[in-house]
Each structure stands twice: as structure tokens, then as C-alpha cells.
């Protein structure tokens, strides 16, 4: 993912690229409560950018400041080089897809979609044509005359998307676009949304609390907590190299260990934890003797009934305390010698009945992981 810095797929790595949206020192206070606290962010043309976080983390407030429904307490937001501070929502080059869809219940699908175009005094013929085109894009060409209450949840979602897209905004803001759909439809719609975004080339900013959704959709993710950005990066960066315990825990699951740095080499770090000695093959600026946190993802730990051939770092011994069968994978709760329980996941490639070496309850197992698997955390 971290390829050519000048590539158009990764404009944020290009030092010379001019961002479409510049958020500078933006704070939003509601009385004593700080919803968004002094954030800076650049978003580039064509990105599908996710604001990810739990409820009350400030992601929706930030989105509403972009759309103009909230004013910033301090700081500035500019879109395409224009300061948005005094621009009302109806004059911003943004459109929003609301979480509740906010379809006008007294208008047909067609009228809902045409509403925004009519505000721009576009000739009727052109409006009709653009409405047709966009409804075709979201595969609702036969639904012009339906009213919102005659549509399914998925269809409403697509009308809301069409209505926001048809004005060809510079930025499309999506507030939990898939939250109201059931799981199967949500997964399918994720890919549709990505395809549509690719076709229209409009910058999307998506607010979501669903980490899987963020991982699937985004070019980049900003993880938010308590009104601040905790980490901004591509899905791979966020998952493979979480910088903080919050990110490691919020996205996917992780076993985290507190430990002491025993060696800080130029290309590796060794940390002593209650899992044993962990060798990390990528350097980070820590000092010997520092207390640090290390995270290892459950799927990066290998289980074996056989003891390792030679002793070394990145090894541990434990007892199977519990097994959770999830179908495609199983999750093993392994109790270490110091009674600490850690999670290990392993794919179920072989059917349980035919499995000869299957690991079972109360069994002694040997754990090991690669030097590249563990990550040092900042906080």
C-alpha cells in the first residue's frame, strides 16, 4: 500500500499535492463539553476517507461542521481553497447522505432526487436527464414515481445516495451510510458504494462506528476518540501498525502486554513481558529500560502441540482454557503459566471430524510468532 509517493492512489504521500479539504485547528464546544478538540486534517481529491470511532467521539460533529450544520468554535475548514466559515449549508459544495436518509416523505423518488438540482435553477429537461442517469447508476430506474414509504431499506439508501450525488458535489458526506441495513445487505452495499465512488470520482467522507466497514471502504481512516484523531492511515497501516493501545483494541482484537525494553537495536527491539521475550524486527525510538506496551494480533500467533526445536524469543507455553468455534476460524483461549489468558485464532481448514491433530480443551500447547508480528505501542 505504501507504494510510489507520487502515485495518484496515495496523494497524501505527495508533499506537493494540494488537499481538497483542509481542516486546521478545528474545535467544537457545546457548553462545557468539547466534542472536537483542535484537529488538523487534509483530505485529497478522490479519496474515500473514513472517520471511525465510537459514539460520542466527535466524528458526526466533524461531519456536520463540514456540511455547515454546525459552526466551528475555533479553527477553519476550507474546501477547494475556499474558507467555509461563513458559507451556509445551502451554498457549500458538499452534499450529505443522512443516517436516517432524510428522504422527503411527500415527494416521489424522482422529485426527491431532482430537489437539489431545482435549487440551482437548472432547466427542467436537464434535470430530468440527470435524474434518469443517477437513478440508473443506483439501479432504481423503475422507481421514479414511488414514494419513500413504498421502498425497502436498501432502496431508500440508494435514493438518498442518488439525491446527494446528483448535484455532483466536490465532497460527498456520508453519515453511517450502511448502519440501517442488515448484515448481508450491508456487506454487498459496501462494494457497490466503492464502485459508485470510483465511477463518479467524487471525494467521499464516511462516518462510521463499524471498523469492518471502514476497513473495506476506505482509502484512509482517521480513528477518533474523545474529539481527537488517534491515528490516521490506510486500513493496512491502522491494522498492522496501530500506534496506541486504543487503536489496537478498537480495530480488530489484540493481545497486549506491558514490558520493559531490554535491547534497542537499529533494526530491532527486544522487550521482556509476561509472555516471555518478544523480538520485534522493526526499529522504533525507545530507550533500554523503558516501560512499553506490545500488541500481537490473535491470528499472528501459531499454536502447536509439538515443542519448538530450539528455545528463543517469541515463544510461550500455555494450556487450552476454552475454544470458540466460529465456522471459518476458531478462537482459542490460552492460559499461560502465569495464569494470564490470551486469544489465538486459527483457520479451520480441515473439518473437525477428520482432523487428527486437533487441539482440544485442557491440552498443553506451544505458541510462537514471527519477528514481524508484534507491534510496539506508544501509549
Amino acid at each position, binding site marked *: 500500500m505504501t507504494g510510489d509517493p507520487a502515485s495518484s492512489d496515495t496523494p497524501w504521500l505527495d508533499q506537493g499535492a494540494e488537499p481538497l479539504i483542509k481542516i486546521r485547528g478545528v474545535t467544537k464546544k457545546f457548553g462545557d463539553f468539547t466534542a472536537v478538540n483542535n484537529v488538523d486534517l487534509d483530505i485529497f481529491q478522490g479519496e474515500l476517507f473514513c472517520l471511525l470511532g465510537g459514539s460520542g467521539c466527535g466524528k458526526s460533529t466533524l461531519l456536520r461542521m463540514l456540511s455547515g450544520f454546525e459552526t466551528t468554535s475555533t479553527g477553519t475548514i476550507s474546501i477547494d481553497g475556499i474558507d467555509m466559515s461563513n458559507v451556509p449549508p445551502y451554498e457549500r459544495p458538499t452534499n450529505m447522505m443522512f443516517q436516517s436518509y432524510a428522504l422527503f416523505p411527500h415527494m416521489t423518488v424522482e422529485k426527491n432526487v431532482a430537489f437539489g438540482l431545482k435549487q440551482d435553477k437548472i432547466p427542467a429537461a436537464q434535470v430530468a436527464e440527470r435524474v434518469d442517469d443517477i437513478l440508473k447508476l443506483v439501479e432504481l430506474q423503475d422507481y421514479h414515481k414511488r414514494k419513500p414509504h413504498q421502498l425497502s431499506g436498501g432502496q*431508500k439508501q440508494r435514493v438518498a445516495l442518488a439525491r446527494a450525488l446528483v448535484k455532483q458535489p466536490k465532497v460527498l458526506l456520508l453519515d453511517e451510510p450502511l448502519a440501517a441495513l442488515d448484515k448481508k445487505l450491508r456487506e454487498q452495499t459496501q462494494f457497490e458504494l466503492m464502485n459508485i465512488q470510483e465511477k463518479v470520482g467524487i471525494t467521499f467522507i464516511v462516518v462510521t462506528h463499524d471498523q469492518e466497514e471502514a476497513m473495506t471502504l476506505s482509502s484512509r481512516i482517521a480513528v477518533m476518540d474523545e474529539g481527537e484523531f488517534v491515528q490516521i492511515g490506510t486500513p493496512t497501516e491502522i491494522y498492522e501498525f496501530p500506534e496506541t493501545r486504543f487503536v489496537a483494541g478498537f480495530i480488530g482484537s489484540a493481545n497486549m502486554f506491558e514490558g520493559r525494553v531490554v535491547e534497542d537495536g537499529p533494526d530491532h527491539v527486544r522487550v521482556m513481558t509476561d509472555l516471555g521475550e518478544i523480538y520485534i524486527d522493526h526499529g522504533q525510538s525507545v530507550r533500554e529500560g523503558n516501560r512499553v506496551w506490545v500488541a500481537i494480533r490473535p491470528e499472528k500467533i501459531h499454536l502447536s502441540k509439538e515443542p519448538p526445536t530450539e528455545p528463543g524469543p517469541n515463544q510461550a507455553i500455555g494450556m487450552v482454557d476454552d475454544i470458540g468455534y466460529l465456522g471459518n476460524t476458531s478462537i482459542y483461549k490460552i492460559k499461560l503459566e502465569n495464569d494470564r489468558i490470551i486469544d489465538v485464532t486459527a483457520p479451520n481448514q480441515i473439518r473437525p471430524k477428520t482432523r487428527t491433530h486437533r487441539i482440544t480443551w485442557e491440552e498443553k500447547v506451544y505458541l510462537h510468532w514471527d519477528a514481524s508480528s508484534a507491534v510496539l505501542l506508544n501509549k
Partner: protein
Amino acid sequence: MTDRSVSAAVDVAPHHASALSRLMRRMQSGWRSIVVFIPYVWLLLFFLLPFFIVAKISVAQLVIASPPFTDMIKWTDDGVMSIRLAFDNFAYIFEDDLYVKTYINSLKISSISTILCLLIGYPIAYGIIRSGPVTRKLLLFAIILPFWTSFLLRVYAWMGLLADQGNINNLLIWLGLIDEPIRLMYSEFAVYVGIVYTYLPFMILPLYANMEKLDATLNEAAADLGSRPTNTFLKITLPLTMPGIIAGSLLVFIPATGEYVIPDLLGGGNVLMIGRLLFNEFHQNVDWPTASAVAIVLLFLLVLPMIIYQYYQAKATEEP
């Protein structure tokens, strides 16, 4: 809350109702029929039956009164004869200048009052909706409170304000706007003030109830799509509050048409309204057949708005 779950809830409710009621019906029907029977009989006896008597009196008495139109139409069948007489009776009422004028004037006054209530009540209801949750409750309470005090005394309060020596005239003279008292009492103006004053809460409450259900994000969505506030109001808020406008208008229009107290106290003899005419016909002239006929006509005049109201009610519940 998703639309899906709302529609699911709507789907489930009638099914449950019928299942439960079926079960209740099967298990014990004795006490059930008593529950229905008592209020049913009460309403039949004291609500429905009186109307039939009124209808009968208006027709029967007119046969004896033998109106001057009998020779205009010739009928042979006795059954049709009575229908003809009933028709003549209503023709008689509509022939009489006083009744026609009074009906038309009642409708005019109640229509204008309804529009005035709407023009004043709509921004008030909208203002309440746009207030914070606590203020909203207090304001609503303040609007309802006068409704619980005596209607008669609220009309009386305006007698003191509108009188020749009253507060409004005194204020205007003190301000130097007028030199001598202007006639405010015993005029249509006074009747309008009285009706708007006493019926305003009936306009505000249904409007409020309707606006409360409005999704505020719709206004945001419209703004987001480039609509200015005025346009958003005309294209989104106004059409969506139409059920409230209709409900409130009928709640004002129907009772205002038949109003007696306000035209009597504030309008005096100068304002013709059908409720007052009917009341006086009955109590002062003791002319029951005419009063009964006037009542039947008034009933029909108000049946139409009621049907419209029912239609919109049914439509409103149909569309979520």
C-alpha cells in the same frame, strides 16, 4: 430507529390486536358485552335518539304549518308527500332572507377566524417546536392553561378591553392616537377577536402535535441540497404540516360556525350568527320547528367538513 423496524411494528400491531381480541372473545363474552352495552345504550338514547326527534319535529310541524309552496309541485303518493314537505321546509328556510344571510355570515366569520387563527397559531406552534426541550414543555403548558379556565370569563375579559370606556380605547386616547372612543364592542371585529382568542389553542395544539413528528433532518437535508430557509419552509415544512393545518382548522371552524356566546356577548344584535339565531328562536320566540329545521341545516353544513376531516385523518394514518 430504522424504517424497517417501524414498518415491522406497524405490521405486527393489528395482528396482535386481532389475536388477543379473538382469544378474549372466546374465553369470556359475558362481561365483554356489558362493557360495550352500557356506553352504547347511553349514546343511542341520549345522543342519537334526540336527533331523530329533532328531525321528526321539523318535518311534522311543517305539515301543520302548511307552507305557501305546496301548490308548486303536485304529488299523488302519500309517502313522497312527506318528503316534499320536508324539502319545502328547507326551501322555506333558504327563501327567508334572515336565515340565508345568517348562514352565510356565520360561514364568513368562522372562515376568516379560522384563517386568522392559522396565521397567528402556525408561527407560535413552530416557535414552540424550535425551542429547547424544557422551554417547549413550559410554552405548551402556557398555551393550554387558558383552555382550563372558564370560556365565558375569557370572553368577558374582552368586554372590559373593548368597551367604549374600556382599556384599549383608554390606551389609544392616552397615546394621543384618537380623540374620542371608537366603537369596538358589538361589532364583527369584536367577534373575530373573541373567536381567535378562545379558539387559538385548538389551532396550536394539533399543529404542534403534527410538527413534533416532523423529522428535523429533513430541513437539514433540504439546506444541504441548496435550499434557502424560505424555500425549505414552503417546499418541505408546509406540505408536511398540512394534516395539522387541516385538523386545527376544522377544530376552529366547526365550533366557531355554531358559536353562540361570542356573537351574543361581543357582537350584540349587530352580528348575525346561526348559533345565536337558533338559540334565540328557541328561547325567545319559542319557535321549535324553525329552530329544529335550522339545527338540521346547520348539521348538514358541518357534515361536509367532518367528512373532509375524516378523509384526511384516514390518509394521515395511512402514510407514515
